């Protein structure tokens, strides 16, 4: 495992910010930490990079304990903080050169890495511009460039898309995928379910300092897949149709809103054909039909009883 935590605990006074967290992240993964604000995601990140004292448990990264090896371990980690962490009085290239030098890169190699990081984030033509003249999205991209200039093995991104326009957000999401395809291991925290669902190979769902579920997306959805649901758009509304469908064995619920029928059925009951027959037998036609799968949002809702953005 590239990253492993055992019974990780952090307390702030009486508040248990991180409660016995166990994580295993393999090399080459995009690992998502999904949870609402205040769930403990950033605290875990800070403990991983050795900036917050661990009250209990252990962290090992690259097979080394972080405690006692912070500088050695951190030299192979790139961090994209939640807030912008760039110098507004240094140009984009100077920002990258500064952070690159902190990781021991010098001379010609440093210049090459700076150029590569600027190209990667689409800021090549802005290298001599001060970030205070950048848009919010460009600043976010520079924030990422500063984290990857030393080409780390592990990149930790803490809510990197907060408060930016959709175009920059898409750019950042594709950058994450690009970094992953180049072999980087990525820890990605977010409270945006769609991002985690789109990007991550494995996900840990957090709430109130605890990991409430962990696995790949299918494994997580399996947790709440106790029934299937189909949505059917019909050509004409027939109120007796709802009762007809409810009588089909395996259907647990059915309701009609305008000309949309939502049908809940027992998992793997294979009764879609009978439902379609009932609809056409009632003298109406199927316009569209879709089977809905559970999302991470519904997983979170089921496990915690609250929405991610509550």
């Amino acid at each position, binding site marked *: 495992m590239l990253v492993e935590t055992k019974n990780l605990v952090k307390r702030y006074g009486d508040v248990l910010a991180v409660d016995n967290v166990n994580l295993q992240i393999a090399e080459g993964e995009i690992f998502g930490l999904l949870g609402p604000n205040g769930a403990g995601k950033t605290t875990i990140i800070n403990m991983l990079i050795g900036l*917050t004292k661990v009250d209990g448990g252990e962290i090992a990264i690259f097979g080394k304990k972080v405690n006692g090896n912070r500088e050695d371990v951190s030299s192979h980690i790139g961090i994209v903080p939640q807030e912008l*962490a760039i110098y507004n*009085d240094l140009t984009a290239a*100077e920002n990258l050169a500064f952070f690159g030098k*902190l990781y021991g890169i010098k001379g010609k190699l440093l210049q090459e890495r700076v150029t590569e990081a600027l190209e990667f984030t689409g800021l090549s033509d802005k290298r001599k511009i001060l970030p205070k003249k950048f848009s919010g999205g460009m600043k976010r991209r520079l924030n990422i460039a500063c984290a990857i200039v030393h080409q780390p093995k592990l990149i930790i991104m803490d809510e990197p898309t907060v408060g930016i326009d959709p175009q920059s957000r898409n750019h950042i999401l594709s950058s994450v995928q690009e970094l992953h395809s180049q072999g980087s291991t990525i820890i990605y925290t977010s409270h945006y379910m769609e991002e985690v669902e789109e990007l991550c190979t494995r996900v840990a769902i957090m709430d109130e300092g605890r990991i409430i579920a962990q696995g790949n997306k299918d494994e997580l959805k399996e947790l709440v897949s106790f029934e299937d649901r189909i949505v059917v758009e019909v050509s004409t509304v027939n109120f007796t149709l709802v009762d007809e469908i409810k009588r089909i064995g395996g259907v647990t619920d059915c309701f009609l809103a305008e000309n949309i029928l939502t049908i809940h059925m027992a998992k793997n009951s294979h009764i879609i054909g009978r439902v379609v027959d009932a609809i056409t037998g009632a003298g109406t036609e199927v316009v569209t039909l879709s089977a809905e799968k559970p999302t991470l949002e519904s997983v979170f809702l089921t496990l915690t009883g609250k929405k991610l953005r509550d």
Partner: protein
Amino acid sequence: MTVFSYTLKRLLRNKLNLFMILVLTPFFIGIIFSFGSFEKNSITVGLVDQDNTPLTEMLAQSLEETSPVFRLEEGEIRRALARSQADYILVIAPGFSQQLIAGEEPKLRSYSIQETNFASRVQIKVEGFLGAARSLAAAAEGDQTAFYQGLEEYQRGNFVLKSAAFQQQEKSIDASLAGMGMLAMLMMLLSSFTTINLIKDRVNRTFYRVMAAPVPLKNYMLQNILCFFLVLLIQIAVMFLGVHYVFGLYLGPSVLNLYLVMAVFALLCVAMGVALSALARTVQQAGTIASLVITPMSMLSGLYWPRSLMPEILQIIGKYLPPTWLIAAVEKVMLGKPLASASMELAILLGFTAVFFLLGTWRRADIAK
């Protein structure tokens, strides 16, 4: 030294910072002392002459040229001081003249009611006279007749003895002491560079990012401290050049010694900035705390006016403030005393520096917060 070089680059890139360091400070101090008034105040000298030789008589006459002098016995010293009959009392022990003519370094004892810059004028006069006498004694090689003949010629002004340390007018010394006081106050204000920069780095999260890199906290702090220390050293040098060559302010017999004393104080200012950055959460908070601390501290330490003008209780409080010890050290080197004579004052300043550094680092245990 990446943090050092980039912090320096950021500081010097800011035109306002450059203006403050290179132009505003020397200009401000120079203007004040060009138009300021540093007239002598009368100071009464009591003389306990237990030697009673022609040399000590000549010394008394020399003092009478600038101050009223009256003679008294050793047993009357306490009463004379208590009743303010004398501001400064000089005691010449028996055998003083003989030792001096023999080429030895006899000591004079002196008493004053309180530490005062005015006393420096008498000390300058005494040291100036004795400096000439020592030179004559060395030339006379122990011959008393030759020594006194030379001394009479010197008093008549028939030749000049080079004694660079004491050729300055007392007015210049007072102005220079006040100038150093003003510089000290400005240096304390400019220590806000340190504070503002450290707080900004913390607020804009670059400190967090630097700490996430393989950079130990003490390394980061040390490089910042070195950077701001260098800026203050440059500022002192610029100020010295400016006020000396443009405004003609006297910088004492050893500019290097004065510079070293101010350099120790510069380090203290940086430490104070570091401590303030740890106490304040925002730049605005730091500004408020700085104003509340620096102005009263400057007043109580005698940076605006001599401490002797303040009530006794305030003078006692002043002893617990660093700039008081700076002024004491500056006074010594301005009077031409060796730097070692100010070692106690410098040690106290370094002690304050250590305390401020500790205050500035102990609260940084959880960097991420």
